[in-house]
């Protein structure tokens, strides 16, 4: 893929550069991975022992205590369920609706095509801002509901353009012949467009789902009561408590049997629970999201 590499003269300078580059990249990989590794060993180390520091590459007093404590809290299971539900509902509904809109706006014979595109493209450049949106959701009764997680993201102008440009690259005759056979547009969308658009749908699905999994501020803003807390918010609450370590330590005394726990170790275990699912999954979807970005770049 990268043409030039075989043409370099293997001069001494070039070789030295190769080695330096290699070492630099190893160092780079270390900087990227180590913070996660550090958190992992802290999460498997006895909390009180962690406070003595000097924990570099391996847990000193190995324990499952931290995870036991974290999983025993019912909130966590509930938070995980809500997180997963949010990801699935929001991603599927958004892709279905945005894809349908993209399809409709690529039908050349459709009179409203340009109008719809412009109406949506305008929203890419102008938006309401935090306060008007907040006030609107209050008025619509979206506060403290699960709906607020998926309904405001049902259509997306940028994704509409991406899917649209993909559909425009498909042979027109497929939809046209189905139309002449009397198929409804929804049927064409289901039977022809969606199966053909799998690559672009997969790329966008990864991005949308990751966005929803990692989102926390909208939970704070629109679901402050804690009824629909996601995993991220759950972690953030522990994060805030860590700021007031003294206060929490007093609370910790209630858990007499778990006197080895500290806020740091509980936080580490929770962080791992929140981030590991995604860290395991993302390498397998690489080709999709790299593809997605490249489509966007060509388009933009």
């Amino acid at each position, binding site marked *: 893929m990268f043409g030039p590499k075989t043409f370099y003269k293997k001069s001494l300078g070039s070789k030295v550069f190769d080695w330096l580059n290699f070492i630099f*990249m190893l160092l780079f990989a270390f900087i990227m991975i180590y913070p996660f590794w550090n958190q992992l060993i802290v999460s498997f180390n006895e909390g009180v022992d962690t406070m003595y520091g000097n924990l570099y590459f391996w847990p000193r007093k190995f324990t499952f205590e931290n995870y036991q404590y974290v999983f025993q809290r019912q909130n966590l299971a509930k938070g995980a369920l809500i997180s997963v539900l949010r990801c699935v509902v929001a991603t599927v509904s958004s892709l279905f609706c945005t894809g349908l809109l993209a399809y*409709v706006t690529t039908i050349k014979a459709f009179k409203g095509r340009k109008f719809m595109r412009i109406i949506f493209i305008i929203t890419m450049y102008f938006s309401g801002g935090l306060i008007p949106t907040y006030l609107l959701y209050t008025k619509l009764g979206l506060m403290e509901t699960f709906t607020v997680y998926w309904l405001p993201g049902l259509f997306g102008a940028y994704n509409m353009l991406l899917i649209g440009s993909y559909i425009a690259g498909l042979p027109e005759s497929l939809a046209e012949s189905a139309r002449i056979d009397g198929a409804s547009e929804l049927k064409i969308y289901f039977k022809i467009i969606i199966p053909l658009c799998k690559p672009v749908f997969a790329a966008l699905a990864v991005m949308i789902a990751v966005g929803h999994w990692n989102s926390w501020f909208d939970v704070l803003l629109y679901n402050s009561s804690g009824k629909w807390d996601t995993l991220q918010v759950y972690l953030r609450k522990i994060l805030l408590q860590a700021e007031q370590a003294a206060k929490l330590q007093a609370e910790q005394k209630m858990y007499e049997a778990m006197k080895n726990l500290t806020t740091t170790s509980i936080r580490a275990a929770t962080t791992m629970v929140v981030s590991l699912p995604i860290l395991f999954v993302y390498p397998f979807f690489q080709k999709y999201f790299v593809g997605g970005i490249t489509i966007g770049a060509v388009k933009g």
Partner: protein
Amino acid sequence: MFKKKDQTQKINAKKNTFKDLLKSFWIQKELWLICLVALVWVIVFCYVPMFGNWIAFFSYTPGKNIGNSTFVGLKYFSRFFSLPDVKQIMRNTLAISTLNLTIGFAVPIVFSLLLNELRNGYFKRFIQTVSYMPHFVSWVVVASLMFTLLGSDGILNDILLKLGLTKEAIPFLNKPNLFWGLITSANIWKGMGWSAIIYISAIAGVDGELYDAGSVDGLGRFGKAWHITLPGIANTIILLFILGIGNILSAGFEQQLLLGNTMTQETYEVIDTYVYRYGVQMGNYSFATAVGLMKSAFGFALVLIANKLSKKFTDMQLF
């Protein structure tokens, strides 16, 4: 069957008259119905909040509407400039976003150029996969990692103590003078691999024959990177830079809320966190909307100017 044919003929006639449009409401009613749903959604969730910005010009309290609120003109806009905090907020916003737009902007470019020089395909793929790992975790997770690494019993303090560089643990996250550096590092750590993807694909798009020609002309490795690869991705760089300039007043939001605390407030408070604090938490809706609106207008103007300048000097433009 005959009717269908009739329909396609009508559409192919392509006379954009009003009559045709009216007819299409009936003939293409299924498409229009789908669009109706999308239209209702976009009006409610995009256009209503857009016009909801009217409260910046009125003295608004919840429950009121535009009819029974008093028009105050630009009162809230000028109030922002008379605040004692305004200098500090502007300074923080500009400092953090300037760091992002210089160092934070250059790092992914340098990284993608260096990555391009790696010869081993597997190693290259491994490095790239690792590079965007942090993009996939939330800022909450990044904040948690930083708390652990930089905390008083964290590893950084361990090393500093061992090397004798410091006598007692430094509470890095409570030091106002370290905040800009910390947040810039965090931004780079989290975003560089992801930002590099677009440059890497641009580098892959550079014509291979140019490199052959370069070899013939006696260009070395560095020469090729400088004279062929870099100019080859210059367009991408300029476009992204113009976009970045438009966001100069958006210096980040989640990371400030998570990493900042009362001790570092003097260096972390940026426009966005300020709007949140004053608008949502204290209920000064009109004032916070005015500040937010001013920010967007300024960003929009900056993009237009940057676009003009770029057109003039490099004949590259965004629109």
